[in-house]
């Protein structure tokens, strides 16, 4: 009697937590939408500045003849005597790279635009916290990690992606310009989650009880989020690079391109940032696959069996290895390597959506016995 009552109570708590989670996810979506509009406002107001820095820089490089000053020594004024602190380092770009300055960001130097941009980031932080709460409540309601099905995977994924973005901002990296692109996809991702992929909260089946699951899936999500940031940057690099090429060869890009692309960082900066991001997660992705293999070894008796999910993780891995190789291979640097990076992210995406939806394998298995019970988000 008391036992039954306790079970009921626990069930009720879980239901409450689950509905709290849903409310929080919807609230996060609302706040993200506000942030989205604020980012739009930032871009629109930013378009008022019509400086054309890239064009100016590209023409200036050709014309510039005067020499830069010698490296100065930084002088710190300490009372009456000037204390010389340290010599200043002169940095120069490598040969072959254009000397283009980074754009000012979405606000284009416009003060009002900047204000909206700051509002947008504040709203993003707020939405992130709310969404994080939603994911947490979901995890508590099911008493396990929040990635047992595609719905949970989606909400966790977007939370982590925004988390990565905010972390980069907090580390003072030049990534503010990413905001609009990121929030747009976050809204799409959440929209998909609450409509098509929604799954009532539930506990896990025995096949998924393993701490390797926690490790494997959490790193897979983190890798995806970082690969995503890398892919957006790579894509923008490709646009910015053609824009700069066009300007350098004397062409006139369209007004829209002029307005938008001019505000982004220089193509070389975008390229470098994308590389850093992809190179930084590649070892983690390698680890993710290995953790998955260890888990598969424990659960299915073989650590590698060319299951579709395993295969696509492998393909993703090889694609990014190609990308890293291409950057060290003459004739493949730059745009070609960038295409490989995008293909790599495409593989990651297909591994998640494509394989879960179109291909059946052990990861979403239906079979007699214990096999029937192995269905998993990732």
């Amino acid at each position: 009697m008391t036992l039954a009552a306790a079970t009921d109570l626990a069930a009720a708590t879980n239901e409450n937590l689950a509905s709290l989670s849903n409310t929080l996810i919807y609230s996060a979506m609302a706040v993200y939408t506000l942030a989205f509009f604020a980012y739009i406002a930032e871009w629109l107001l930013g378009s008022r500045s019509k400086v054309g820095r890239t064009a100016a820089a590209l023409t200036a490089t050709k014309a510039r003849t005067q020499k830069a000053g010698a490296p100065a020594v930084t002088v710190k004024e300490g009372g009456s005597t000037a204390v010389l602190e340290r010599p200043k380092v002169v940095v120069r770009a490598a040969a072959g790279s254009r000397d283009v300055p980074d754009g000012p960001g979405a606000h284009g130097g416009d003060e009002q635009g900047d204000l909206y941009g700051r509002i947008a980031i504040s709203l993003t932080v707020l939405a992130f916290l709310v969404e994080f709460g939603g994911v947490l409540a979901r995890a508590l309601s099911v008493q396990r990690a929040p990635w047992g099905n595609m719905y949970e995977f989606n909400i966790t994924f977007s939370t982590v992606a925004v988390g990565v973005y905010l972390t980069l901002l907090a580390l003072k990296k030049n990534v503010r310009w990413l905001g609009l692109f990121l929030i747009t996809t976050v809204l799409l991702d959440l929209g998909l989650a609450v409509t098509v992929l929604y799954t009532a909260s539930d506990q896990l089946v025995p096949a998924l009880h393993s701490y390797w699951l926690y490790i494997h899936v959490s790193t897979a999500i983190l890798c995806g989020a970082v690969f995503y940031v890398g892919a957006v940057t790579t894509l923008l690099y490709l646009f910015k690079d053609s824009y700069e090429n066009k300007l350098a060869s004397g062409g006139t890009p369209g007004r829209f391109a002029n307005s938008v692309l001019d505000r982004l960082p220089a193509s070389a900066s975008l390229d470098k940032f994308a590389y850093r991001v992809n190179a930084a997660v590649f070892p983690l992705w390698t680890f993710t696959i290995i953790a998955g293999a260890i888990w598969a070894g424990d659960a299915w008796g073989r650590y590698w069996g060319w299951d579709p999910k395993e295969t696509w993780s492998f393909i993703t891995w090889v694609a990014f290895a190609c990308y890293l190789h291409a950057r060290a291979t003459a004739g493949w640097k730059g745009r070609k390597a960038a295409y490989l990076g995008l293909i790599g992210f495409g593989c990651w995406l297909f591994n998640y959506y494509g394989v879960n939806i179109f291909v059946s394998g052990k990861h979403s298995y239906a079979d007699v016995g214990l096999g029937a019970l192995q269905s998993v988000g990732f």
Partner: protein
Amino acid sequence: MTKTTAPDEATDQDLGTAGSQLSTAPVDASPNLPVLGVIGWARWFWRQLTSMRVALLLLLLLALGAIPGSLIPQTGQDETKVADFQKAHPTLAPIYEKLGLFHVYGSVWFSAIYILLFVSLIGCIVPRTWQFVGQLRSRPPRAPKRLTRLPAYTTWRTESEPEQVREAALALLKKRRFRALPHSLEDVGGAPIAGDAVAAEKGYLREVGNLVFHIALIVMLIAFAWGQLFKSEGNKLIVEGNGFSNTLIGYDDFKSGNLFSTDDLTPFSFTLNDFAGTYEVSGPNKGTPRTYQASLTYAEGAYGKDKKTVVKVNHPLEIGDSKVYLTAHGYAPVITVRDGKGDVVFRDAVPLLPLDSNVTSSGVVKVLDGYKNAKGETEQLGFQAFLLPTYTVGNEVSSTFPALLNPVLNLEPYHGDLGVNSGIPQSVYQLDKSHMKEFKDSKGEQMRENLRPGETMTLPNGAGSVTYEGTKEWANFQVTEQPGSGWALAGAIAAIFGLASSLFIQRRRVWVRATAGPDGVTVVEMAGLGRSESAKVPEELGDLAGILYEQAPGVPDPAPDPDDVPDPTHPAVPAEGSEK
């Protein structure tokens, strides 16, 4: 003409040397076709194969080649799906078959790709390793004449003696764990310009990491191949109370790699004491399994001591190289069959196969010998058995919950010849009715009865009876042996660490030059060069300069000397291999 261009060319060469060998990446093979006959061709081919470009293409091919196997059913994973596919696509299937698309990962072309890739990899690693050892034994390249053209540069003037500055720089760089050497005059053939600088290099671990990573890939491939050749995998269904010993005949089915021999089976035995499953009792996921566990008593070797353990999903029992996995479970009703005289002719737990997630089960009870019918003739009996672990009124055909809440066993008796002596292997779960007759009830219809535990069904005309005594559970165990997995794991771990140091460590060089200026004041110049452009190089150079500056404080600049100033019309020297 020559007079004006020569110094520039010399400088460029000089700068090229400064940035050379910052990595051991192979230089691109020249596209020139050989004219030297067979050996020339072979050398050309080898050089192509081990070039970065071909390695990249092979990697791309590997990724592409892996795709079809994920979209087309594979025999290695699901034979029935392959058969279905072949039935559904009668024209396409033979073509696929020819191309090996039903077993992509073992096909000739897929193997060719990865074998070529690994040959290329070995052909790449060996020279790179030698080259790297050579780099470790030689000294960092001497300072280029014009340090101003390097990506990071700084300079100041000081009253300290040039000698003192160089010594301080050397000490500082060594303290910062740079490999640093002063270049004496003799070293560079007496050229005075080079003798006045300290050259230092750091970040060799990057190259080590890269080589470790690529070698680890080879280790993993070999371990995987080894495992495939020597692996074995067998299945055994065991009813509670029964045991198993690890010999070939002990298995229900058994697969092994090409080089496996039965001597490789690890000797051990175990008994299944108890299987327990728990299930969600309410809510939308009612009936979803929560835990499965099998309690075993096992012994290693032929005469090992008995030990107890619990095997769960994800938690295999490991004995030597073997792992014992729990892979399926079901129910085995205990059946007693008596003949017309009341003598027991059969008593056993009969495993039934689950049909759905609520473990609705079916199977066959076969009484092979010892039974005589009412006329005293020897006959065989067969029963089609159908078990609902949880019977709910109104649902006669399937169980409503996976646990044994309200078990009902439906039996359909037959008599005659089971056909097991015909020599054709027969499934224990199927009844060959071609030589069997139905038992008829009083109305002349096929006899069929639902029994609860403890209940007995009496066969007509004194043919005997069947009793459903109770229910045991069975568990299926998969025993796998995959030697080499330890090596694969070690390779994987080495690969991750190698990769991390290869990607996170920057290999870079620093030069410090101190010369007496025309006015007797010492001019200090420092420059840094990384393998790739990175903000860290100037940062580090700034730190080093700051420290050195304290030891050799600056004096005010004279009017700028146009020759010592970085010249923006000449971009900085690129690191090796970083030019577009």
